[in-house]
């Protein structure tokens, strides 16, 4: 591909395209015209204390506590974490564990809340006037509001914002690509809340001190593009809209940066090192609410769609609302359901337990029918190269899979396993239906396990050695003390003997009994 690519002769930004990628059936029309509707407060909410990448938040409430909407109920623990707020007013039923919205189904610390139905606000966060606030104040406010990246990865927004201290930044890139099929929540948000998004972006740009804001939107969202093109500045920072081609995975941050700015992020580096910071458009909207109105992040827009759903819709849902309630709100399931996903069909995760809650990173709830998933039995690889053509990272997935299948994980790493972003393009394109991503995830998990075991062994060894050294040091100190003591005693004895000898020289030789007494005294 690259050999005959003309893109190398020109600046890639003129073409705004990425190598590889796929064009799946988008099926966005199911919900793209559905205005965002607000879902009523559900009777029961389960708010996990880990909805972000990083450490689990520390619970601040206990059973039977009454909480108000927006009240801080989980405090960020450590540098990489995020605050959790009560999504509505009510009574805490339990602070315990509940199934995570993740295919593992493992329990995570969760606060269960019985809503009182009044939805009564507690104290808002102190508002800020971003025009006068300094960057640190804005960052602190974003941190207080518990904002995380709303594109799906749920990376704490304030932590990302703090990269300004480490790198020279020039561009804030708002990600409105929304390349996953079905999902339209960002599209709707851009159409309906363009001004708020621009304001949020302006606030972040001010905090970051960047010179420009670029909003990148895929060409299949003309209304969103038109809505954002109305604005030329966000809080004084020049803003432009970059229309990128409709191509999955355009929304991958590093690929989007390449398409829009022509700069390719080196492996293992961050886009910030190129001077670009990428945020989702919904994150910008959350920042606007937090800074202007003091509202913490307690709800988000979720696309509820799929062929097995009665009424596909875009719904504003309180964080902690059970998935089953959201599905019921959208008319429930119809026909045969193949699987239910959180997120999009390319990278989303299937869930078994429908009582799991919507969290900050949930951008979609999809109920897919069998004709949409097109499940078929894997056949042998025929080396057709579809996966190589589809890979946006220039990898050879079929080869990596072959090595993983023969348990040669190091060999797979050598040809780029760790550069894989798990976008799923290869597995989508594979005519033999080989579950490539599954193989890669398996290998990555296995390698991480090995790594941690190695780390653990090294750590155990280190600790054992340290302990041995410590014990030896103590023993050595004891020995030295003993030796010193002995030496002192010997010295005293010698001194006493000398004294006695002196006395003996002056007086007649002592009788043995007296001499013994003198020795005793000296010892005492």
């Amino acid at each position: 591909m690259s050999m005959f690519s003309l893109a190398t002769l020109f600046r890639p930004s003129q073409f705004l395209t990425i190598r590889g990628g796929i064009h799946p059936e988008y099926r966005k029309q199911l919900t793209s015209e559905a205005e965002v509707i607000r879902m009523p407060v559900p009777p029961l909410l389960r708010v996990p204390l880990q909805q972000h990448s990083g450490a689990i938040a520390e619970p601040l409430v206990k059973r039977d506590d009454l909480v108000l909407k927006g009240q801080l109920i989980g405090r960020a623990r450590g540098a990489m974490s995020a605050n959790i707020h009560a999504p509505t007013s009510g009574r805490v039923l339990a602070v315990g564990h509940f199934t995570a919205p993740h295919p593992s189904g493992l329990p995570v610390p969760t606060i269960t809340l019985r809503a009182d139905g009044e939805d009564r606000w507690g104290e808002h966060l102190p508002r800020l006037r971003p025009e006068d606030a300094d960057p640190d104040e804005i960052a602190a406010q974003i941190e207080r509001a518990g904002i995380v990246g709303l594109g799906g990865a749920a990376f704490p927004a304030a932590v990302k914002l703090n990269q300004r201290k480490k790198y020279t930044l020039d561009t804030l890139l708002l990600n409105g690509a929304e390349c996953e099929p079905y999902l339209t929540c960002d599209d709707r948000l851009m159409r309906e809340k363009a001004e708020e998004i621009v304001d949020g972006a302006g606030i972040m740009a001010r905090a970051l001190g960047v010179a420009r804001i670029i909003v990148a939107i895929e060409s299949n969202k003309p209304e969103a593009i038109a809505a954002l093109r109305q604005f030329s500045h966000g809080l004084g920072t020049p803003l432009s809209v970059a229309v990128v081609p409709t191509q999955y995975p355009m929304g991958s941050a590093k690929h989007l940066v390449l398409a829009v700015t022509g700069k390719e992020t080196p492996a293992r580096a961050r886009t910030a090192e190129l001077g670009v910071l990428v945020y989702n458009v919904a994150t910008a909207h959350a920042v606007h609410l937090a800074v202007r109105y003091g509202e913490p992040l307690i709800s988000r827009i979720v696309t509820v769609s799929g062929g097995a759903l009665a009424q596909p819709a875009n719904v504003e849902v309180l964080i902690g609302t059970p998935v089953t309630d959201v599905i019921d709100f959208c008319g429930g399931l119809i026909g045969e359901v193949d699987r239910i996903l959180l997120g999009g069909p390319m990278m989303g995760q299937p869930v078994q337990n429908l009582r799991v809650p919507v969290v900050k990173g949930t951008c979609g709830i999809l109920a897919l029918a069998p004709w949409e998933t097109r499940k078929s039995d894997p056949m042998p690889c025929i080396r057709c190269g579809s996966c190589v053509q589809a890979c946006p990272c220039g990898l050879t997935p079929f080869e990596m899979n072959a090595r993983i299948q023969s348990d040669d994980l190091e060999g797979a790493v050598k040809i780029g396993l760790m550069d894989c972003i798990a976008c799923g393009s290869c597995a989508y394109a594979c005519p033999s239906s080989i579950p490539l991503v599954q193989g890669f995830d398996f290998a990555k998990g296995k390698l991480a396990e090995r790594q941690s075991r190695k780390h653990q062994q090294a750590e155990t060894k280190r600790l054992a050695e340290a302990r041995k050294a410590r014990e030896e040091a103590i023993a050595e100190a004891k020995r030295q003390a003993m030796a010193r003591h002995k030496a002192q005693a010997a010295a005293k004895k010698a001194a006493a003997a000398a004294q006695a000898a002196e006395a003996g020289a002056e007086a007649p030789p002592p009788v043995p009994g007296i001499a013994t007494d003198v020795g005793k005294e000296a010892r005492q």
Partner: protein
Amino acid sequence: MTVPVLLSAPHTHTVFTVSRTMLMVMAALAPATGLGLYEFGWPAVFLFLVTVAAACLFEALCLRIAGRPVAPFLRDGSAALTGWLVAMTLPPYAPWWVGVLGAGIAIVIAKHLFGGLGQNLFNPAMVARAMLLIALPVQMTTWVAPAGLIDGPGFVPSLAITFLGAPEYDAISSASTLSHVKSQLNAGAGMAQILGGVPDLRARLLGAVPGSMGETGTLLLLLGGLALLVTRIITLVIPISVLGTITLLSGAFWLMAPERFPPPLLHLTSGATILCAFFIATDYVTSPVSAAGKALYGAGIGALIFVIRSWGSFPEGVAFAVLLMNACTPLIETYVRPRVFGRTRTGKPLPLKGRK
């Protein structure tokens, strides 16, 4: 291969499958095959059917012995396609057992002994052709002039030609374009004189020349190849590099010594050149995957075809050229890789320009 239940993302899949690919290739081959069968008459039809049926039978047998499920692999059409391609390379009046032997070599030796679908190092159809050519030089080089289905031997005499080895087909035997050129050159004739004796360009394009059953309809093969390009079954890289290299090399030598080397157009429109460029060299399993690797591979095939045709002892070199480059594929694959995102060609992370 044991694969656990697919639960991992992605949760949707392209409609393209292996069997669709095989069906598309067969559809693209169909016009040229139809022309070949029509031109060479009933014996060709019988030989074609016997070869394809034998390929499917051998496939089923091998799968059975290997303990693999027979139905899903037979349904994907890869065995039928292999048999089809073997038949395309056979002389149309060859006896039935040549077809069966060819199918057996292709399926059993070239495919299943290497591990079945996707595991073979060499192109099965070309292995069959090369082995037959060496083992059965008489049967594999007895060409007939295209008489047409109606004017050629009738249904019953044709049965005798294919299944009983009826002797009368010697009467209508003739030379293929390439073997004519070769023998005349060896006899010391000049190129101008030789070219006067070969069929004209129009005949070569339309398939009205002696040759293998399926490689004479140059224009229809080209059309089928274009269909594969349009449906994205194949990319342009291999056909362009094969044909380009042949054209460049034969053109250069023809310009230098026009008396001893046939013109490029003759190379392109005779033998299995077009069939090879679009249908044989583009075989997924035995060609490199990256575009640069494909270019190298195609150029190698083109060069080898020209070299074997010009200086080898065989008039046609497609099978040997393809097999030799098949053997190079793992090597090409190892050294010619796509560049990984964020890395240089050598695999190091891209350099960062001065940041704080």
